[in-house]
């Protein structure tokens, strides 16, 4: 069988986190009662005109700058014309041949290799409303329309066809979302529709130069489903080619329950959008100085935080990846490490203990009950050898449900380590007295039994005895007695 290469380009729609819609002052808050966040403008009533939300432009420019796009000093809005009940004006205001951002790329990391996925463009557009098809009522064919979402600002981010697998698509989406969230321009919530993705998929024989015929796969509601849908569609196309057939250019709808994709009715996709420049909006002219200001005000981006953490706190790249998943987690880590005075140990605690609990309970780092000041104090005690890692974990468990700091808990619970020589010698004497048999064996030269005596002593101290000092004390007492 011939080897095939999968070729994927992604179109991501990200909802910008502005308070008001892109062309009117209606609220964008999700979940309001249907058709309550509307006005003549977003309802597309006769006679209304759009007024551009400058914050939406700023957010789009921030995104472009963050991924290295060129920002057009002049971009042009265009109308995309089509009929649909949830599109009140009969056209969507978008950008066409002169988008706001061109070029740039997103670095992905799959199977240990870094690779840049180039971007074609990023443009601004308005969202349509939502059509709701009530289910479960037999014979009812009514469709309901909610226009709360109509006019919510979106950016469409179009990648080059440089993605080669579902796994790469998944990583691309994760990293794109991460960038958007670091910029705080999108809340990244796929369930609420604030991040959506369509995939253009084709396959070609390994080494071939020309692209194969592509299909567009829509309706994926999670990153995992994007990954699955791409894998499914690539397999399907390979199957067609292998059996001597030809791939038909069409739009497919992904069905997550069945794990398959089926073609849309051709009527629904036979669109000529008749784009033309939007006469109600002037071309969008941006001053180079303003663009520079936005550039200077960009927050730190994921890769910058990763580099800083590996450089300044001496943690491995892998740790930095995990700890920069969100801006909040990175901040949590930085504060913990600062308090603890030990970057690597702080990293270990967060990656294992904190993330372990969070994953189990589905908590965000913001919801996690131990704040970094308390966790840092705990890690510091371990780092300074004031308590053992084992005791530290006991304290950590307690801190999950109690407000006290680690110092107080250690004291109150009598968990302070026993490292005082006389106390350890007394403990050793007790153990020697209680175990005459093993003591005789040790004296006869059986070193392995010494470990048994250490264990007994440790047990009696409830784990608090300082391990090396305890061994010293035992040896001294064995010689003395």
């Amino acid at each position, binding site marked *: 069988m011939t080897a095939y290469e999968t070729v994927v380009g992604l179109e991501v729609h990200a909802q910008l986190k502005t308070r008001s819609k892109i062309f009117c002052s209606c609220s964008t808050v999700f979940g309001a009662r249907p058709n309550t966040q509307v006005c003549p403008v977003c309802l597309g009533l*006769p006679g209304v005109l*759009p007024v551009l939300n400058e914050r939406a432009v700023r957010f789009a420019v921030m995104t472009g700058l963050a991924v290295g796009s060129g920002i057009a000093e002049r971009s042009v809005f265009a109308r995309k014309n089509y009929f649909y009940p949830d599109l009140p004006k009969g056209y969507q205001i978008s950008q066409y041949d002169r988008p706001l951002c061109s070029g740039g790329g997103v670095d992905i990391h799959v199977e240990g290799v870094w690779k840049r996925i180039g971007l074609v463009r990023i443009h601004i557009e308005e969202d349509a409303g939502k059509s709701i098809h009530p289910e479960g009522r037999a014979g009812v064919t009514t469709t309901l329309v909610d226009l709360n979402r109509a006019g919510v600002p979106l950016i469409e981010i179009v990648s080059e066809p440089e993605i080669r697998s579902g796994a790469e698509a998944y990583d691309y989406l994760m990293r794109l979302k991460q960038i958007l969230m670091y910029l705080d321009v999108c809340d990244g919530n796929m369930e609420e529709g604030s991040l959506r993705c369509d995939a253009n998929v084709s396959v070609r024989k390994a080494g071939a130069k020309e692209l194969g015929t592509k299909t567009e796969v829509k309706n994926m509601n999670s990153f995992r489903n994007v990954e699955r849908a791409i894998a499914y569609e690539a397999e399907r196309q390979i199957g067609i080619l292998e059996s001597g057939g030809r791939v038909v250019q069409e739009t497919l709808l992904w069905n997550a329950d069945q794990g398959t994709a089926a073609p849309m009715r051709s009527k629904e996709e036979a669109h000529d959008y008749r*784009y033309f420049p939007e006469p109600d909006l002037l071309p969008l002219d941006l001053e180079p100085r303003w663009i520079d200001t936005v550039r200077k005000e960009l927050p730190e981006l994921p890769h910058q935080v990763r580099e800083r953490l590996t450089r300044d706190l001496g943690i491995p790249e892998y740790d930095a990846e995990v700890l920069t998943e969100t801006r909040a987690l990175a901040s949590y880590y930085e504060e913990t490490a600062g308090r603890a005075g030990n970057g690597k140990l702080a990293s270990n605690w967060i990656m294992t203990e904190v993330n372990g609990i969070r994953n189990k309970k589905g908590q965000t780092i913001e919801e996690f009950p131990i704040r970094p000041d308390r966790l840092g104090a705990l890690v510091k005690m371990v780092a300074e050898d004031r308590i053992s890692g084992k005791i530290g974990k006991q304290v950590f468990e307690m801190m999950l449900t109690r407000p006290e700091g680690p110092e107080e808990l250690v004291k109150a619970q009598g968990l302070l380590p026993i490292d005082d020589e006389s106390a350890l010698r007394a403990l050793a004497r007790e153990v020697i007295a209680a175990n005459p048999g093993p003591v005789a064996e040790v004296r006869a030269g059986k070193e392995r039994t010494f470990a048994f005596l250490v264990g007994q002593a440790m047990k009696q101290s409830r784990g608090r005895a300082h391990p090396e000092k305890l061994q010293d004390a035992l040896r001294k007492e064995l010689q003395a007695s």
Partner: protein
Amino acid sequence: MSPEAPAPDTAESIGRLVQGRERTAVEIARTYLERADRSAARLGTYLHRDAARTLAEAADVDARIANGETVGPLAGVPVALKDNLCTRGVPTTCGSKILEGYRPPYDAHVVERLRRAGAVVTGKTNCDEFAMGSSTENSAYLPTKNPWDLTRVPGGSSGGSAATVAALEAAVSLGSDTGGSVRQPAAFCGVYGLKPTYGAVSRYGLVAFASSLDQIGPIGRTARDTALLYNAICGRDERDMTSRAEAKPVALDDLERGVKGMKLGIPRDLIAEGVDPEVLASLERVAKTLAAEGAEILDVTLPHARYSIATYYLIAPAEASSNLARYDGVRYGFRAKSEDLQSMYAATRGQGFGREVRRRILLGTYALSAGYYDAYYLRAMKVRTLIRKDFADALGRADAVLLPTTPTPPFRLGEKVDDPLAMYLNDVFSIPASLAGAPALSFPAGMTRANLPIGMQLVGRPFEEGTLLRIARTWERTESALRVPPIAAEGNA
């Protein structure tokens, strides 16, 4: 000549009298309502009138004045609104079946401004459906007739707005002008009609036909009234991103300063053919009079203006095809009963729109289609740039361009209704200024031997509406008393 009626009240004098408490707004409103009661039905000037509402508005103006509130220069002035201007709670149909019964939930920007200035709305005037037409015969409801000759058209699309002012049913009115829809009916009805510079007046609340061309414009019986109404509506509005702060009110005193030293350019190449001799004679008379007043008359050329109609009939229908997509029967207005969504769309739009509107939607849809866009829409936009440059060149040499508003006096009802091309050609002199975005004014320039009005047109530099009004005012001062059509004179006799 028709029998002379007593000099009609101008908006200017009404405003002065009402502000000075010499007359009440209610008295004025009654006078105008009575006149409209006599003639409006015969002329077909209105699609919607509500005497009680008009009187209530007038009473409100009187109350504001009684309260010591400063009401603007339009205090108590009866103003008619073209039916494509949104009025809160008042039917706004654009002369179309598809918007039958539609009542907007908001007032257009210009309507807000007029209310603030103390104007009183007489009603919503008839127009060609969605402002597409040059005779008001494309109204889905009724045709409007020319007050000077009821067998002739009043022009269009703002035929109702021009006719109602000519017939003294309103002191002034607002129309909208996309390719001549204020100027041409003003010319046909013997009144003033100004198409302001594109961007001078907010389009918020004007139901869109062709967004890059549409402008709301004032219609009045005198140059000063026209200026007064323009002043009330011009300027930047945050709700229209194409509206401009450069648009400033015109100082009325400046209109009296004459034309001494001004240069007027006549584009003789454009008006060489197909122009009625009486219209040409009127042009020469105006030029001669203004020369006698001290203006210099010179020739200018507008080399690309002859492509105006072709250019216009690509750009305007293209934009219209998109602007009119919202009338789909889903949310408001007319909806045809149908089995499924696609056939509901088709039936609603097929039955709700008239022939001319459907024709232009088809034209525009075609011009924007994949594969045709570059050859049609894009090329038209390039020609438009050349036409704009023609005007910039001409207006670099002259302070204004002078040409007829229309090639002929008003034509007969039904004469061109089945010949869209002949109808389109009627706009040959008004469309160039629309494409250029330049301000243009049609003013009454005498009557034909058959006692039909003739309109002349002035086109100026961006935001120099004042210059045009000043030139027209100079001509107006040399004319005899204001002319009143027979139908308006009847009631006063």
